[in-house]
């Protein structure tokens, strides 16, 4: 009775196959657009090696920062109800629904204010590598918070309450009972934030610029190549991004399942 041959399951399997098939067809078309020789020549260039390294480093830092922020924010939103809770909940999703370019403009304008100038005296963000990380983080954190919120909503509060009756402080109950149970969720949030950061283009371009060998990350490399008609270079970098994303996501998922 539960056979996949039933019309209902067949329909669902067909939709899944069509969707995945379309994706695979796109990837195959992109992969065959350029030759291996041309691709390796592009990828070994100094500029692309720099933007690859910068992408890997900035994505990792912004993913870590996203999880560090996402855990307390999501825990608060999941466990406590207070006046303005729904409003704050909606506000936390703003970076998810805003066009990424708008986020970049908001960042740029904020750092033109007095507060922004003071911050920049300590850490310069505009058109720097720190700015690349901040632009990636602002959006990636929203996705990490959404992921962690689901994780904490799913974990019952009762074990923490039992820990409190055994003499634990709030912090001890959180760090010794809830946080270990949320490990897989934290890996999921980090991988979502990492993947999101890797693909971030609009805010990075507006806020950190696209200066070669300085603030150029892989999506900006694709855009720069495309804008001057160097299609092979754009395709080579795109393929590299696809490979990096798949390797990182598969590794993180495998690691998450083991933990």
């Amino acid at each position: 009775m539960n056979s996949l041959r039933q019309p209902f399951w067949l329909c669902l399997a067909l939709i899944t196959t069509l969707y995945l098939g379309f994706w695979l067809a796109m990837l195959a078309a992109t992969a065959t657009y350029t030759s291996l020789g041309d691709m390796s020549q592009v990828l070994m260039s100094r500029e692309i090696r720099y933007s690859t390294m910068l992408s890997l480093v900035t994505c990792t830092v912004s993913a870590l920062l996203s999880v560090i922020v996402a855990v307390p924010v999501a825990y608060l939103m999941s466990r406590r109800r207070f006046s303005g809770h729904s409003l704050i909940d909606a506000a936390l999703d703003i970076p998810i629904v805003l066009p990424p370019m708008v986020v970049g403009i908001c960042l740029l304008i904020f750092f033109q204010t007095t507060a922004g100038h003071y911050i920049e005296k300590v850490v310069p963000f505009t058109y720097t590598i720190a700015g690349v990380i901040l632009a990636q983080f602002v959006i990636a954190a929203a996705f990490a918070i959404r992921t962690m919120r689901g994780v904490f909503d799913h974990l019952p509060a009762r074990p923490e309450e039992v820990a409190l009756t055994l003499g634990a402080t709030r912090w001890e109950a959180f760090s010794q009972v809830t946080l270990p149970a949320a490990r897989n969720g934290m890996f999921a949030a980090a991988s979502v934030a990492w993947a999101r950061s890797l693909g971030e283009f609009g805010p990075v371009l507006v806020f950190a610029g696209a200066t070669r060998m300085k603030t150029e990350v892989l999506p900006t490399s694709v855009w720069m190549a495309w804008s001057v008609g160097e299609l092979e270079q754009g395709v080579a970098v795109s393929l590299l991004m696809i490979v990096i994303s798949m390797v990182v996501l598969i590794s993180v998922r495998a690691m998450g399942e083991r933990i």
Partner: protein
Amino acid sequence: MIRLENITWKAPGFVLNEVSFEVPASTYGVLMGKTGTGKTTLLEMICGLRTPVSGRIFLVEVDVTSLSPGQRGIGYVPQDGALFPTMAVREQIGFGLRLQKQPADAILSRVSELAEETRVSHLLDRKPQGLSGGEKQRVALARALIMRPKVLLLDEPLASLDEDTQDDLIALLQRTQQDHGITVLHVTHSRREARTLGQVQLQLENGSVSSHTPG
């Protein structure tokens, strides 16, 4: 001894209206009531997990109304045991003593003692996943007893267990109460549990509690 004086609580769906009752020291009290009448809320207020709108809570003659859950000297066993998801049974039971930074050998010896008493010695290295309902409740009971509480609070500990397991746990709860000489408040909607265990039977209905001591 557990004494509640004029406890008031308001929530959507039910109101506790100046609830007062007492379970004498070293007595097994059972609080009965239909689902949704506020039994668990009342227990959570005694635990210190919720603050009553008004009224006072006394445990062993001490006013604990404003004390934190950890300062009340209670043991708490929630409905499904609420075991810590990532800890082995040994760590679960020793959790309270570990928080107090007691020496490792003292923790080990107390854990072994309680594991033997609650008959979970063979489960000490297991994680909660895969334990049966009865095993989970035994572990939760051992964990609650580790701090040598004067008051034990049980929230429907036998719900969703089969009858044989219920009988086993009933015998364990009776033995535990007598051996440790503690005051127990056991929340349930089962008349059978109330009849078998309750030295003092309390009925929560329409926001107030009536008391009955079986002859």
